[in-house]
């Protein structure tokens, strides 16, 4: 009797003991700081003024969402970078995944080679491209001149529009491989028999693409787009190295703007409020993501 009671007690206690180291660390290094940041976001803590601060209520949030043209502009900039990046990453990723799924020999090695940009740090990828965009010695201008396409030393970060295009191009280079990998996995989970029977019924490849591949790939695409969308709201390293937000703030994203407010102006409270506005946005996106996951599981069951 007593032994059984001890065993029971131990059983209830063990899961906590096993899980507690991570949970304590997460509480101390992630949850507590986030709570502290929320507390800060309601004060007017500004390190460039001094260590004293006082409670100001929701004033920082009102400033961020109503008055701060620079922050609202950065929301717009982020959207302007996200929209074309996502669309092209999806289309290009799908195209390459379809090509890869037709390869019989050497697929793993080609896949691994194509995946490399996604494994590289945004800062390193960004630096490589920054040098390629170089006005006098960059690969792009040199190649363009050699091929006779460009006749001047073109400044890729000279005008706001071209700079956004340049950033989007690097972003596509950096993350299309991820989309390709996700979609390739999705393609491989479609049973071959479906295509075989469609072929027997006289379907053209185009028809089976529209009525088999696309419908069955819809959820995979949605998940891939969702993950990219959430990660694109964090776009920081690429901007830091490529344009530093320029020219004229045209490529200043929300994460980069918050970084500047926090670590250039040292307005800690206001930066915390901005971060929470971003967290709110990302949370909404995450809920949509979870909802899609659940819908997919319901469909699979």
């Amino acid at each position, binding site marked *: 009797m007593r032994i059984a009671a001890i065993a029971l007690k131990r059983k209830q206690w063990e899961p906590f003991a096993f899980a507690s180291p991570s949970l304590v*660390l997460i509480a101390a290094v992630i949850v507590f700081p986030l709570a502290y940041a929320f507390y800060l976001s309601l004060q007017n803590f500004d390190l460039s003024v001094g260590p004293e601060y006082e409670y100001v209520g929701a004033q920082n949030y009102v400033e961020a969402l109503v008055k701060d043209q620079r922050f609202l502009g950065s929301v717009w900039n982020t959207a302007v970078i996200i929209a074309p990046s996502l669309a092209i990453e999806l289309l290009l990723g799908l195209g390459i995944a379809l090509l890869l799924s037709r390869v019989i020999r050497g697929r793993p090695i080609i896949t691994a080679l194509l995946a490399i940009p996604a494994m*590289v*740090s945004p800062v*390193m990828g960004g630096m*490589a491209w920054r040098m390629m965009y*170089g006005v006098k*010695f960059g690969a792009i201008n040199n190649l363009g001149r*050699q091929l006779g396409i460009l006749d001047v030393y073109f400044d890729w970060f000279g005008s706001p529009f071209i700079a956004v295009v340049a950033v989007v191009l690097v972003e596509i280079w950096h993350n299309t491989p*991820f989309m390709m990998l996700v979609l390739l996995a999705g393609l491989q989970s479609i049973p071959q028999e479906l295509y075989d029977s469609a072929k027997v019924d006289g379907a053209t490849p185009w028809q089976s693409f529209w009525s088999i591949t696309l419908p069955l790939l819809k959820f995979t695409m949605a998940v891939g787009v969702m993950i990219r969308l959430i990660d694109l709201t964090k776009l920081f390293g690429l901007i830091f190295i490529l344009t530093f937000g320029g020219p004229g703030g045209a490529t200043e994203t929300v994460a980069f703007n918050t970084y500047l407010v926090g670590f250039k102006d040292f307005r800690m409270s206001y930066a915390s409020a901005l971060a929470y506005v971003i967290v709110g946005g990302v949370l909404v996106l995450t809920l949509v993501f979870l909802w899609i996951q659940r819908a997919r599981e319901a469909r699979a069951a």
Partner: protein
Amino acid sequence: MAIAIERSVVATRRVKRYRARRWAGHALTYLGLAAALVFFLGPFFWIVTTSLKGNEDFFAYPPVWIPSEPSLSHYVGLFTRSSGARYFMNSLAISSLSMLAALAVSLPTAYSIARWRFGGGFLSAFLLVLRMLPAIALIIPIYIMYKLFGLTNNYLGLVILYTVVYIPFAVWLLVGFLRDFPIEIEEAAMIDGCSRLRALAQVVVPIIAPGLAVVALFAFIATWNEFLFAIVLTGIETKTMMVLVTSFTSGGTDAFFGEASASVVLGVLPAFAVAFMLERYLVKGLALGGTKG
């Protein structure tokens, strides 16, 4: 007779047409993939060749694409003048330590979730939400706290932060590996008198070692690549490669590329290694953690 011959002629023609079309299809497939490889790997090729070029090749017009006299002088310069050796070792040490610590802490937690469904769906969802969290939201309070405790420009501070940030990711992947592990083997060990912890360390770990290696490599590359925490929290001694490379951006886009390209080559080296080692797990790893910011 005549009809039969005609039929066979038609049939051969059909087969020929079918073969030609299939051949054309294959050619187009490989052509498309070749174009993709040029786009996605071209920048690496250019960076590597640039890092090996001497001044003469670098300033030449028409441009020299393949260095005529490859030299490692920029790497030597990076290691001596720009203290690249130190920052490379920093990156290596911080990433390795965080990787080991994250693995050690995450494994029991993942075990608890996989075996006892600890925390139910709530804990899993919570960990997923943490993965979605923007790093910018965390770095502001962490910076203030670290300043207070004197943990800025400090290896320990960075290792702690990276360890904890990659716990959710490691737990998620490990739960998957542990669920695949046959519980009978473990129970047999425990019937023979093994404690739960010993069974985990001596029976489960050796068998799921490949899975642990996958998680470890992803944690390593994620820490190696991390930039926002590093740029805010490191000082002159504790810089990582990611911070070092930003020092080459002053002086416009045409500042001399030698050491900059050498540092990029060193900075992307682990990514190449990991992409090949983890080919099968790339989707999962990148979806759950991968590169951020």
